[in-house]
Structures are given as structure tokens and as C-alpha cells.
């Protein structure tokens, strides 16, 4: 059994706060686009996009999704099975892209996403929003917006959904 570290209400409040922080940092929603990482970040990108468009009703901030499996650095080390298909139907050139993922761990997925997003154009800036930062980074990558910092063991399993965040320790009972 896992420990619940965030309830559904906690997740909802974190999403609202992150959305406000994004708008505050950008001083508005001009040329702002949200890109969720398939698959875990897709629901969170939707939630942040919805929240931002409620806060700034005129903004019309678009939400896209990127599958990074073909940009991963472990291709050839293990079989890579792409998840859901990328969907970015807006121009990325000159925009501020906020990459969104549920859990930030080694940073390798984010590195792949940084590379992947360049195939769609040259953003003015790329930022990173995550619901959980669980540590154990293997690359120099740092999130701009964090729902909760969660110290974990490297073997722990962290599941983040709209219903809450659950951590399961695989080692100790």
C-alpha cells in the first residue's frame, strides 16, 4: 500500500497556484503555450491550460502534447515503445513554451522534450512545470514551477493523477 502525499484538493490547489505563477512570470498570457509530456503530463497540461484560460478569459492559451520516445537517450539500450501521438497544432516559433510533466525524476525525459520541441520551431523561451519534484536528477535540469518537492528513495514509485499523489516504497514493507 502506498502513502497518499497529496489529496485531490491539494492537487487542485497546486494547479491553481502554478497557473497563477506562470501568468505572473510572463506578465500575462501573450504567446504562451502549454505542452504536456505524453502520457503522464497530458492531464496536467490540460488542467493548467484550463486554469490559465479561466484566470485570463481572453488569453486562449493553446495546449499541445509531445511524445518524446524517439528523442530519448536510452534508445538502443532498451526497447522503446512510443506512447500517445504528439499533437502540437500551433506555431512554436517565438512563443514561451511551458513543458508540463507529472513527476520530475532523472530529468532525462525533459531533456528529450527540449530536443523534441525544437523540431516544431524555435521558442523564445522554454520553462518547466511539474506537479512533483522527487529529486535524483542525472542532468542539469531544474523546474520553474513545482507543485510539491518530495524527497524519495530512488526505488520508490510515485503516481500522480488528478485524484492525488501516492508514493509506494518498493524496498521496505
Amino acid at each position, binding site marked *: 500500500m502506498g502513502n497518499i502525499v497529496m489529496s485531490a484538493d491539494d492537487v487542485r490547489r497546486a494547479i491553481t497556484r502554478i497557473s497563477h505563477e506562470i501568468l505572473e512570470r510572463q506578465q500575462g498570457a501573450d504567446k504562451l503555450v502549454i505542452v504536456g509530456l505524453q502520457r503522464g503530463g497530458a492531464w496536467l497540461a490540460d488542467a493548467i491550460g484550463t486554469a490559465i484560460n479561466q484566470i485570463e478569459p481572453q488569453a486562449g492559451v493553446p495546449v499541445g502534447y509531445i*511524445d518524446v520516445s*524517439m*528523442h530519448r537517450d536510452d*534508445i*538502443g*539500450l*532498451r*526497447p*522503446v*515503445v*512510443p506512447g500517445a*501521438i*504528439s*499533437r502540437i497544432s500551433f506555431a512554436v516559433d517565438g512563443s514561451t513554451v511551458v513543458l508540463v510533466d507529472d513527476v520530475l525524476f532523472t530529468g532525462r525525459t525533459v531533456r528529450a522534450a527540449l*530536443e*523534441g520541441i*525544437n*523540431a*516544431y*520551431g524555435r521558442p523564445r523561451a522554454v520553462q518547466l512545470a511539474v506537479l512533483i519534484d522527487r529529486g535524483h536528477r542525472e542532468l542539469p535540469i531544474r523546474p520553474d514551477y513545482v507543485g510539491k518537492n518530495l524527497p524519495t528513495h530512488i526505488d520508490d514509485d510515485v503516481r500522480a493523477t488528478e485524484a492525488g499523489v501516492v508514493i509506494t516504497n518498493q524496498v521496505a514493507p
Partner: protein
Amino acid sequence: MKHLRSIDELGHDGLVRLLNLTQHMVEVNRRPIPKVPALRGRTVVSLFFEDSTRTRLSFETAAKRLSADTMTFSVSTSSVNKGESLRDTVETITDMGVDAFVIRHKSTGTPWQISEWTTASVVNAGDGWHQHPTQALVDCFTVREALGVERFDGLTLTIVGDIKHSRVARSNISAFSMLGAKVVLVAPPTLLPPDVAHWPVEVSNRLDDVLARTDILYMLRLQSERMAQGHVPNLREYAELFGLDAKRVAKLPTRAVVMHPGPMNRGVEMLVDPSTLPNSLIHQQVSNGVAVRMAVLFDLLAGESSAANLQQVTP
């Protein structure tokens, strides 16, 4: 699966996996920069002992869009002209360090033979009259996209023309049957293979009889040398009996689609300008070719099928 040599070897699950993977590759090809680093450091060699435009170019484009290195072997300028055997050629190329051979050869079974001589993956790009699995993948994917269905249950595929000498027909009969389609073959008796009775198909010698219940009309190319070999009395008679003209187009159900693997013989099997057909998928067949071959190369060299090829490493 280390090789893609025939549709039957691929099987139903492999077929569906590659068709789903193709959807990812279609999206990659739509990006402003349609290139991903997935196969960086891998080398794909194309070994074509028969002429080809679309298959060879689409394999090479596919490899490049996945960032693989490509080598092209052109028979006319190679040591094959000095008498080097196929085996020595394959072993020489293998020694240079390649990950996949894409091979087209006039003899049935060459891809199986080559896979005995090399540690690399082998992709069959056409062996004699036998198999052309990537063309069948292209055709299944094209129909899936055009009709918006994942399976072909209740659909009738009518293949018209030189079935006997057609690797495209053999691969397509397997692939479309696997996905649930009913297959009808239409050809003069001389252009049907002798063992057709054992195939999961219905056979007709009259195109006009089957048009009304056809959902997918697949016209094969009639090679002109078939006339010299006595399989058809003359091309005009063949065109009259088996060519697609305006009268026959009118007999098709309105939602039926028309396909052709190319290169087309206008005035023989194709008597109408295909660009005037309401539901021609011929252009989509070519444009989907690159994405399908990207999916095949990715699956063999980096995807699920690559598990057997990968060295053991700690995660």
C-alpha cells in the same frame, strides 16, 4: 522479430503494432523539421538487385528521417560485375558494420538466405513473385486512414490483374485477410497461380460481376512482357476485359476506393485518369510509404522487435 521478410512471419499482432507505429511517424513527418534522432549511429544499407523508384527512395528517406546512416548499393557499379557472389557481397557489407539490410531481388527467398549470412536485420523490399511486406503495410495503413477503421471486417478487397507474378498481391492477401477483409481476385486464368484454390480468397474471371460489391479496388500493373510470354493475347483485349474505364468506375459503390501500387500502365489496366476518380488513394499510397518504412526500421532497430538485438545493460 529480428527481420521483416513476409506478412505471415510478421503475424496479426506485429501487423497492428507496425500500423500503430506508422501513425507516430506520420506525425513526425508533419513537423516543420521532420527528423528525429531515434536511430543515430545505426547504418541501413539498401541492396537493390531490381529497379525501383518509390520503394528504394522511401526506405532511404525513412532511414534519414530517423537519423540513421544509409549506404546504397548499386549493382551496376559494384563488384557483382566482377563475379562476386551474393554471399560474399553480403558478408563484405556486414563486415563494415551495418544494422539492417533492405533487399530487393528477383529470386524468391533471397531475404531468408541473406539472414543466414549476416547478423544484421533483413527487410524484404520485394523477392521475386513472393512477398513485398512493406507495400502491404502501406496499403493497409492507407485504407485504415481513408476509411477511419482499425479492422476491415465486412470489407471486400478486389485485386485485379496479374496475380500470378505479383508479390504485392501475395502480401496484400495475407495482410488484408488478417485484418478481417474478404479478398476477391479477378484475373484471366493464365494469370492466376496454380495453387490459388488453397488461398483464402474468392476467384472470378469477370471484373464486371464483382465491382458492385467491392469496397477496395486494387489494380495491379500488367507487365508488357507477359504478352510476349503468351499469358495474355494482346494488351487491348486485356484492357477491354480487366482495365478500369469510366463505365466500370460508375459500377463501383460510391464510397469504394481505388488503389494501385505503381508504376501504372495508363491505357492498359488504368483507362481513366486516376486524378479524376473521386476516391483514388494512389497518392496517399506513395506519401504513406515513408512513414511505414520509418515504422519498420524503428521497430526492428529500436522498438519492441529490437529486444533480441540489444546488448545487456543495467537500467
